[in-house]
């Protein structure tokens, strides 16, 4: 479980996130929505430790991890798939997966873990010895997600997993995310610009606008309050 209280992030003088409070519950998905520049990536980077926060606190399963560095947070079980489909381009698919597994929590052995990934995404098995940079966008995203999940994390942070992907692949990816949440009981926080698809799988929603949260609550309440139609004005 992830709990964030009053988090603020600044890049020098730019206040990227202002007093954000929220979190993610085990086995459920929280969606962070907003246009670009809203602060979604900055928020996720602050949680995984890549950005320093200027105020606020982060708790992982009750433990305060605010003072810990990115490396330690990763070891404690925070997995972060960064924006922009970051992967080790010149390593093969299998090397990427092995590396991710090796430095994760290693609760499952390598072979069964790899078999799991290949069963889920057969195309990755086919391309196992190919340099990751040569895969298509969708295949890369499958690999990146698998790298995150193969670590047996406690919290999964996904930054715009659908970016630049065709609708069919996006659906596939989101199916995977949704299944994974249910089966593994991991708390998932994902940021998306494309509200529709994110709303389908999430139970809680947070909408950011210029660093500030303009809506925070359950998806149910978003719909009940009739504010779903308001989303475009929260963005634009």
């Amino acid at each position, binding site marked *: 479980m992830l709990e964030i209280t009053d988090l603020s992030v600044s*890049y*020098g*003088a*730019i*206040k990227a996130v202002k007093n954000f409070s929220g979190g993610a519950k085990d086995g459920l998905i929280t969606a962070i929505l907003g*246009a*670009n*520049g*809203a602060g979604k990536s900055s928020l996720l980077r602050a949680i995984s430790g890549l950005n320093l926060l200027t105020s606020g606190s982060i708790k992982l399963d009750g433990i305060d991890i605010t003072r810990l560095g990115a490396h330690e947070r990763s070891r404690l079980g925070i997995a972060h798939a960064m*924006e922009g489909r970051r992967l080790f381009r010149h390593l093969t698919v299998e090397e990427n997966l092995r590396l991710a597994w090796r430095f994760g929590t290693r609760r499952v052995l390598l072979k069964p873990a790899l078999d799991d990934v290949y069963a889920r995404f057969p195309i990755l098995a086919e391309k196992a010895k190919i340099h990751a940079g040569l895969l298509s966008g969708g295949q890369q995203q499958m690999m990146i997600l698998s790298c995150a999940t193969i670590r047996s994390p406690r919290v999964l942070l996904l930054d*715009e997993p659908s*970016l*630049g992907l065709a609708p069919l692949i996006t659906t596939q990816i989101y199916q995977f995310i949704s299944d994974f949440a249910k089966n593994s009981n991991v708390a998932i926080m994902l940021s*998306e*610009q*494309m*509200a*529709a*698809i*994110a*709303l389908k799988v999430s139970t809680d929603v947070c909408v950011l606008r*210029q660093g500030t949260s303009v809506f925070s609550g359950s998806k149910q309440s*978003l*719909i009940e309050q009739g504010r*779903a*139609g308001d*989303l*475009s*004005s929260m*963005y*634009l």
Partner: protein
Amino acid sequence: MNAMRIFLTKLATHPLALLVLFVVVFFGAPYLRGATLQILSFALVSILFTQSINVLTGMAGQISLGHAAFFGIGAYGSAIIAKTFGLNLFLTIPVAAVVSSLIAYLLSYPAGRVKEVYLAMMTLGFGQIFLEVAREWTDLTGGVMGLSGVPSAGLGTLIILGHKFSTIDYFRVLLLITVCSMIFIRNFSQSRLGRSLFVMHYSELAAGSVGIARRQTKQLAYALSGLLAGISGGFYAHLVGYLGPESFAISRSIEVLVVAIVGGLWSSAGQVISAIFFTFLPEQLQLFAEYQFIAYGLILTFTLILFRQGIGGLLFLPPRFIRQAWLTTAVEQQRQATAANSKTNEPQFLKIQSVSADINVQAITMRFGGLVALNSVSLDIQAGHITALVGPNGSGKSTLVNIIAGVFPPTSGQVFLQGIDVTAQADVEMAKKGVVRTFQDPRLVPHFTVRENIMLGAHAMMHYTWLEAGLSMPRVRLQEAQALEQCNEILQLLDIEAVADQAVESLPYGYRRMTELGRALLARPKIILLDEPAAGLSDLEMTRLAEILVKLKHLGITVLLIEHHMDFLNGLVDEVVVLDSGSIIFKGDMLGMRQDPKVIAAYLGDDEVQHA
């Protein structure tokens, strides 16, 4: 502490104080012991040599690990010409220095293309080549046995135009040349060219955006540095009368780096003190001579980390890069204008005289490897309008602006500026044609003041050469004064006069943004491209920025801005263009954009969400 710095700086830059010092040293020379005179002469040579590092490393940020080579070319060059042709040093030293300068220029030929660490390696290699040549080309250089019989005052063999030069005469000539060189460098550093050297080091893109030619600027730095090193080498040769190749080995290159770094990389005053110190020290302190290598090693390893500013930073105020006299005049003008309440709200020099410029892009496609960033985009950016470019992440906005600004050419398609095809033009050329841009995060020279940073924008508007700058010709004063006046008007427009003479690194973010905008404006743009200008600004600052953009529109300048901040754009822009995945999906006004289903879908996904 600061009071002491102010005092020392005033002392070190006061013309009268310097004149007195010069006169005392010049006329006091005969009263010094021969040995002291000789050490002082060596100190002067060291000062000159260090100035060559000042220009290349201190100002342009290029590291040279083989500068002894240029010193050596000057030394051997002058000595060989003097011995072979019997010419006096007033001819041989300049010739040798020019040769040194030429070679430095050639060495820097790849300077625009390769990363700096490779240049550092090259200078190291070049230093070694010179040493080998000096050792082996016995016919020319005397080889390992060395070159003796170089006309020298100390040996009584220096005869110029019938007059036998004494060591005192030599010292005086050397003193004169050193002082003149330092004045030259000072003038140069306070000119547009000196300032351009600094910006090259900190941001080459920023340099290009205001029309500063990158390769030529670096080559100028190398050539000038080579010239100074050559002159110092020449005087060294005629001081010692005998040249051996080992005097030009790596230890010489290291020594000059040590002197420059301890003095403070861009502080001439600090370097003078450092040069004198390191020349006297081995003489006075036998202990030092034993531990010299260790001392140099420690200095080089830790000074840049622990004591960056060196002696110069400790004792003096940071050097400034606009001539004090002209700056004072400009500040006074500013003050008078404020008092008389005659401030211009819209700088007239920015006013577009003829027609406003429009940009027309046709079928622009941009591929990066397999990725299509822009897909046959065609767009008319209306003259004199404020247009916003928006769109989700990865939509291609920055790519389009980069193409228009000339940072890289499109894979296919064309860009027209006022009807003329400018597709292949690089950013430096586009800037000269009036297309100027700002960057997402301000790229300024951190230790420059706001004014000095803005003055970078006037670089392409001024035309005096480096020689005129160093000699302080009248043309220089005229052009600088005009630029400073225009700079004043921009400071007023942006309402940042209060901080004009503070270093930007000490100022809050909003001021730095304004400074970058000011620099772009001083380049007299017809079209200004702003990359997320509102990011990081407070509400107040954003309102001010919007007002300024409206003023620019009144002046006839065409404005194109990339923004995410929709509230900022409201009421400001004439037209908004929405890009998604490399294609334009909407063109129109803000209200229309908000309601356009394609735009909403691009941002939020399909319209299920509205029916949820």
